[in-house]
C-alpha cells in the first residue's frame, strides 16, 4: 500500500479524488455541492490522464533541431484528451448550474430531498 502510494502518487491521488467527487455527486443533498462533486470527479480523471501521459525527462511533442527520435518526446494524445474532456465537463457544469438556478427560483431551496417532497405533494 505504502509502495503503491509512493510509486504512483498522482494516480492514487486522482482515484481518491474521484471517489470523493463521485460520493458527493451521489449522496450530497445540496445541488451546488453535487455540482462541485461532479467537477471534482471529472477533474480527478483528467489528473489521472495527465499524470501518466507525462514521462519524466521527455520533451513536449514538438520537433526541436529536426530530432525525430520518438524516444525524445511524450505522447501528445493524453493532453489532447484532457483538453477535450475539460471542454465537455465545463459545458455539462454550465447546464447543471442553469438547471439549479431554475430549480431554486421555482422551489426556493437547494436541498434535493426537499424539492422531491414538494414535487410529490404537487403531484397529488
Amino acid at each position, binding site marked *: 500500500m505504502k509502495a503503491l502510494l509512493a510509486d504512483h502518487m498522482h494516480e492514487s491521488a486522482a482515484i481518491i479524488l*474521484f471517489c470523493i*467527487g*463521485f460520493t458527493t*455527486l*451521489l449522496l450530497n443533498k445540496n*445541488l451546488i455541492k*453535487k455540482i462541485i462533486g*461532479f467537477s471534482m*470527479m*471529472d477533474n480527478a*480523471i483528467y489528473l*489521472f*490522464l495527465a499524470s*501518466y501521459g507525462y514521462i519524466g525527462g521527455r520533451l513536449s511533442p514538438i520537433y526541436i533541431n529536426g530530432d525525430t527520435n520518438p524516444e525524445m518526446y511524450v*505522447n*501528445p*494524445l*493524453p493532453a489532447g*484528451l484532457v483538453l*477535450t*474532456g475539460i471542454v*465537455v*465537463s465545463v*459545458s*455539462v457544469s454550465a*447546464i*447543471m448550474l442553469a*438547471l*439549479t438556478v*431554475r*430549480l431554486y427560483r*421555482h422551489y426556493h431551496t437547494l436541498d*434535493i430531498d426537499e*424539492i*422531491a417532497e414538494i*414535487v410529490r405533494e*404537487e*403531484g397529488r
Partner: protein
Amino acid sequence: MLWRNIPIVLIVLPLFISSLTAVLKPAAARTLMLGVNALCVILSALLLYKTVSLGTAFAVKMGEVGAPFGNELYISSAEALTCLAFDLIELLSLTAAFRRADEEIHTNRRGLFFTVCSLLLAALNALTLTNDLFTGYVFIEITTIAAGALIFVRSREGALFASMRYMIMNLLGSGLFLLGLAVLYALTGQLLFPQMQEAVTLLEATGEYGVPLTASLLLLTLGLAIKSALYPFHTWLPNAYSLATPAASSLLSSLVSKAYIFLYIKLVLRGIGLKAYMSSGAGDVVFVYAAFAIVLGSVDAIREHNIRRMISYSSVAQIGYIFLAAAIGTVNGICACVFQMLAHSAAKAMLFPAADRLSEVSGGNENFRDLRGSGYRAPLAGAAFTVGAFSITGIPLLGGFSAKLFITEAAVYAGGLKLYAVLAALAASTVLNVVYFLRTVVTVYRKSAVFSDKADKTAHPLSAAALCVFILLNLMLGAGAGGIMNIIRNGIGFWTLGV
C-alpha cells in the same frame, strides 16, 4: 466514391444545423430541422443500400491520420441499418407529436427544442458510427445534455426536477465510463477499437495487468448500464419519461438509451473482443442484472396505473431483454440484441404518441382506467397503441416476436445454464407483459358512457401519417425479420474480422 463521405455528413450536418436553429424563428427552425432529419434518413438509406449491395464495410479516417493518433468512423451494414432506424424514428417521433409540441412548450423555447433535437440527431449518428472510444465519450456527454434539455423543455411541474435527477444519474454513469476509458487507455495505449482489441488480446495472452483490465471493463460496463437504465439503476427513468413532452419521451426511450447500448456492443465485440470480455466476468454481471430487469420491470409496470409511467416501466424490462441478449456472450446473441433494439425502438416510439393521443381524447386523463372507449374516439391512435403493445408482448408478425425468437435461438445455440435463465426470464416476462398491455388494450376498446364516440379535436394530418408509417415499420420488422437479420449478421460479421 463520394458516397463514402456520407457518414461524416450524417454527423456534421445536424451539428451545424443545431447552432443555426438556435437563432431562427420557431417555425423556420422546425422546418429546417425536420428537413435535415429527412435528408439524414435518405442519406443513411443510401449508405445502407451501398454497404449491402457491395457487401463491404469500411472505415473513414478523419484527416487521413491512422492509429494511434487518428480518429475514425466505421461503417458496415449493421451500423448503416441502425443509423437509418434511429434517424427515421426521430423524424417520425417528432412529426407524430407535431401539435402537442406546440401546446406544451413555451413559445420562447420552441425554437430551442429543435436545436436540442438536431444536437441529439448528430450525437446518435456519431455514437452509432464511431470507431473511437473517446469520440464515443464526447458524444455520450452531448447526448446527456440534449436528453436533459429535452426533459425540462416542457413547462410542467416536476419536469425540472425529473431532468435534474436524470442528469445526476447520467453524470455518475459517464464519470464511471470516463474512468474506465482512462484506465483502458493506460493499459492499451489505443483508442480505436480494432487496435485496442489487438492490445487487449496481447494482455490477455500474457496475463499481465489482469486486475486493472477487469476493473476498467467493469467501470465501462457499469457506466453504460447506468446511462441506459439497466434494472437497479433505472430509478430516474419513469419520471423522466412520463413528465417530458410526448415527442421527447419517444426520443428518450427509443433512441437515447439504445445509442448507449449500441456503443456498448461495439466496444465489447470490436474494442475488447467477446472472449476477453466474457472471461472478465463483466458479461455475467450484466446478464444477472438484465434477468432481474426483465421480470421486475414488468412487475413495476403492472403496479402502475398511469399509462405513460406504465410504458416507461415496460422500457426497463425491454432494456433488460437487450442487455440479456448481448450478455449471452455469442455473436448470435449480439445480432439478436441489435434486432431487439430496433424492434423496441419502433414499438416504444409509437406507443408514447399513441398513448398521449388516447389520453387527449379522454379529457387529458393519464390513468389507464379513464381511457375507456378512447380507441373509438381516436381510431388510428388506438390501432397504433394496439400494434405497439402486441409487438412488445411478442405477438407473431410483429417486430417484438421476431426479436424474442432470435434471443431464444441465440440462447439455444449457447446452451448451458444461460439457456434456462433466458427461457425462464422470457416466459415470465411474456406473461407479465400480457397482463399490463392487454388489459390496457381491452380498456381502450371498451365502450364508455362518459364520452361520445367522436373526438373534439382531430389529429394533425402529419401526426396521423407518422403513426401510419410507425405501424408499417412494426409490421415490416416482423414480416421482414429474416432479411433484416441477415443485414445485421453480415454487418456484425465484419466487426469480428479485425483491422
